[in-house]
């Protein structure tokens, strides 16, 4: 039973990674990150159910809280980036090139 949940979690996580790596729009990258976080949440809750323990659920709640904080910050950054360059293409922001 548990393996189904974990498979779903892995699929979601891989989709997230793929999104982060392949997409150029800042928003899509951001949503992909959220997807990875929630994949982790799903894994936590699955294990929590497996071991009949509340630890995993509490961790999932923590992740949600952190994700909320991260969302507010990230959106603020996105707004600033847009004000700065007028576009949301990550390839434009490449000043860290060596």
């Amino acid at each position: 039973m548990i393996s189904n949940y974990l498979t779903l979690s892995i699929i979601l996580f891989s989709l997230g990674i793929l999104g982060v790596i392949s997409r150029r729009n800042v928003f899509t990258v951001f949503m992909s990150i959220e997807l990875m976080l929630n994949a982790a949440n799903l894994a936590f809750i699955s294990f929590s159910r497996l071991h009949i323990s509340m630890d995993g659920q509490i961790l999932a709640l923590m992740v949600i809280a952190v994700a909320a904080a991260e969302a507010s910050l990230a959106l603020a950054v996105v707004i600033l980036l847009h004000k700065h360059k007028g576009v949301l293409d990550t390839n434009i922001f490449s000043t860290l090139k060596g």
Partner: protein
Amino acid sequence: MEHTATFYLGLIPLMPLVGAFVIGLLHVMTCKTKGFSEEFYGVIACLGPAASCIMALQVFQLLQAMPVDQRILVHKAFTWFSVGELHINMGFLADPLSSLFLLFVTFIGTLIHIYSIGYMGGDKSFGKYFAYMNLFLGSMLILVLGDGPVVMFVGWEGVGLCSYLLISYYNDDRSNVLAGNKAFIVNRIGDLGFVLGMAFLFWSIGTHGFDFIALKANAPMLTPAMGLVVCLLLFVGATGKSAQIPLYVWLPDAMAGPTPVSALIHAATMVTAGVYMVARFSFLYAHIPLSGEVIAWIGILTALVSAIFAMFQDDIKKVLAYSTVSQLGYMFAGVGVAAYSAGIFHVVTHAFFKALLFLCAGSVIYAMHHEQNIWRMGGLRKKLPITYWTMVIGGLALAGCPPFSGFFSKDEILFSALASGHKGIWIIGVLVAGMTAYYTFRMIFVAFHGEPHSKSAYDHAHEPPAVMTAPLVILAAGALFAGLMNLPEVFGGHQLVSHWLAPSVLDHHVHATEGMEWMAMGASVVVVLIGIAIAFFKFARGAEVPYFSGFSKFAYNKFYIDELYDAVFVQPYKLIGSFIWKQFDPNVTDGPRRLTAGIYSIAGSAFKVFQTGFVRVYAIYMVIGLSLLSLLISQTLN
């Protein structure tokens, strides 16, 4: 009772140090604005030394109340550091030797501080001056009170630093700064000897305790060869600090500082440190007669050479400076022939009359508006009566004319030299006594007698304020009567100083007939009177500026020793320095540096490719990294 006494021991050096800190802080905080008044600084500056002086008296009385063979007070303030077998306490030791030093150092130091209030009046950084002076005195007190060579060395370096700061005090003039540098560097050469001596001492007998009490107990374990090495290396330190051949060259240049500083350096602090150190280590020197021999001969030769220099100088402070070098030579001759108490007694009397002479010279310079050339003075006797009479007292004491203090102490050194069989030292010593009398009174007669050489300066000359003349009078009383403390038995005295010092220093007692003592005394008195008489006939009725030629020109230029040192040591050193700077550094040592930098540069340009600047590429790196890490962990767990 015991507890209070040891408590004082820590406080004695602390008082001037706190004073230095407070004054320095106030000065730094207010130097941009108008700042505090001179009186305010002056009073604070005198408080510390005066408090130390009172406490030194307490310590002295406490020691006096104790039985003769137990007169030692030790105060361990805290453990300073502890490395392997070396445990160093910040400890203070008072025994008859250090308590005697404490008394005259704090007393004369206080008087010089009071005098400075008048002398330095109107100076633009009055506070800085007094901060340095207090620091100087505090360092000297640490040196005197230190319970082991290491704590002593703290004070030893402290006085070196303060002498540098004060000699180059008038730092608007480049030559003064160079004089300060010279003092510091020459002292550093001596300090190297001291450090090496300490290291050898620790290496051979120091592991069972490295304070004076333990070292004294372990001194017989020292092999003669090692003992000689230690003694001579420590003496190298003493030649630096106490201005003996070959490191005496800094002291005459130290005249660049304000005159009260010269008085402090020459009388109470700094130059007496070398003699003190040798007396402190008398338990070593007493075992190694050869080292004493070396010290005595270097001392007496220094006395001779610097007396020759002093006879031809025309700067009032230079004459006094060379006289100090000469008198220090006597002291080393004294401690060299194992007459430690005689040497120390000469330190005490010399402190009084040399402080007096320098402060007198200071008030002459003050009255003449910073004129130091004796040939531009003349006839000052009527204008500066107090200065004149106190200076005559100081001069008679320096010349060693009975019954002034210098006579008793110098005579005891010479007599000890003669009685211990050092006839050569005695003959040179008597000769130097005559020369001392000559140059001292040459200076006094030229400056104070005859006709004024500079009419305008003479007319403006006036006796300095009471804050300056009062210390002169007190010191003159000291110069007059200090000798009576150690009145020899032939005069019905009891040699109080020698008996007081007996537990601290290992005096070599010589037995000589009374006739021999009278003869030695008579010879030096006659020579001194001849010296004064020659000076009187040559200079008392007025003298012209001399023209130097032949030997006198050679002596006037101090045998060209400074030039010789410059050519032999300084210039080659500079050449080596500039070679290393211009050739060795860019061509040799820079090689590895360039190589390392080059490797990093190439590596950087190789790794640059990975820094694409795209966020998602960095994300790929992270994923790859995490995947590899996970793989590794899963492999390890399996």
